[in-house]
């Protein structure tokens, strides 16, 4: 199993989640209001407009699902900035 951690512009969160649903991803966790610094400059989270803040999405997927998700997420990251990190999962406990 693989763990995907995606950091992306907050304004694109709904679009990304819609994409994950289309890819039949069964579950994910989201942290809104993530600050940081990167290719889009300083994302300090200030101001009412969400243009200066990021969000963090974490999901655990099976290996064969990985490529489809990365292909889906990649165009959004290319346009809006952000990143996607994939790591191996050594142990995974869930209700299912």
């Amino acid at each position, binding site marked *: 199993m693989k763990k995907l951690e995606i950091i992306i*512009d907050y*304004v*694109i969160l709904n*679009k990304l989640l819609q994409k994950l649903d289309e890819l039949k991803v069964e579950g994910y966790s989201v942290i809104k*209001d993530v600050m940081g610094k990167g290719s*889009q*400059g300083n994302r*300090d*989270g*200030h*101001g*009412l*407009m*969400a*243009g*200066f803040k990021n969000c963090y999405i974490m999901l655990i997927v099976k290996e064969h699902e990985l490529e489809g998700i990365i292909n889906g997420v990649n*165009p*959004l990251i*290319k*346009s*809006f900035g952000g990143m996607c990190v994939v790591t191996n999962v050594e142990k995974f406990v869930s209700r299912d």
Partner: protein
Amino acid sequence: MNTFTIFTNFINPPVSFFFLGLLAAYVKSDLEIPQPIAKFISLYLLMAIGFKGGYELHHSGFTMHVILTMLAALIMAIVVPIYSFFILKRKLDVKNAGALAACFGSVSVVTFIAAGSLLKMHMIEYGGEMVAALAIMESPAIIIGVWLIRKYDSSEHDEHHTMKEIFQEAFFNGSIMVLVGSLLIGYFSNEKGMTILSPFTEDLFKGMLSFFLLDMGVVAGKRMKPLLEQGKFLISFGILMPILNAFVGIGISNLLGLPVGDSFMFTVLCASASYVAVPAAMRIAVPEANPGIYIPMALAITFPFNITIGMPFYLYLIEKVF
């Protein structure tokens, strides 16, 4: 206009709190208003002015003067982004020019509220139809901006959002929903509704506005420095464009024969620029445009200019002209 007129505007508590926020950002104070609170106050302000506007519109009714004002608002919301785009395109790329033109073609609700507060100090009334004009002017610039970019941009880019999604963002965003919804509720609930809600929408209003402008001052102060590094053209545009739009607004108000209060509010609507609703939509529609340019321009240049020097200047001109 004399220095006293400007000074009385500066000592208007909401404006003073804005400067306190700017000062806090300048001295690198840790003053910070938590964003959920700022968001709550912004929704409160929208609800209060929407409700009051609806109540007043109920009393004035839909006269020819009201309809012409709304039509003028719609025309300005379409025309301003078009001429702004062609001015900006001389110095900026198409995407940034379109995003910035959309911001300047739309309106700032907080500038509108601060303008209402200035009129109250001068004991001048304005009609409820100006709140309807505010709602009308909020969204068209988004569509015009995206249309101009797609028409003039020859570079290949991924369109992640369809025009339907952009329309959705433009016309059904949270601010528009609260403003238009409150306007309708105020219109239909009339006297009874006003009696129930006035402790909330009237008595608390100035305090909430002051608190909100304190936050705006902090945010504007933080955004100002990186923008100053972008060069003279953008800073000049951020100051000269509202003045040009204000002159057009005064001319139209004069043609329509609007009373002083309505003329001033219409002029302020023409002169203001959006830094919340439009940037949110443009970020989605045109991700390649730099939000580090179009948000600070409206927030850290045009907004402070309008609420300090611009508004007393426009009021002075209107009182001279009418």
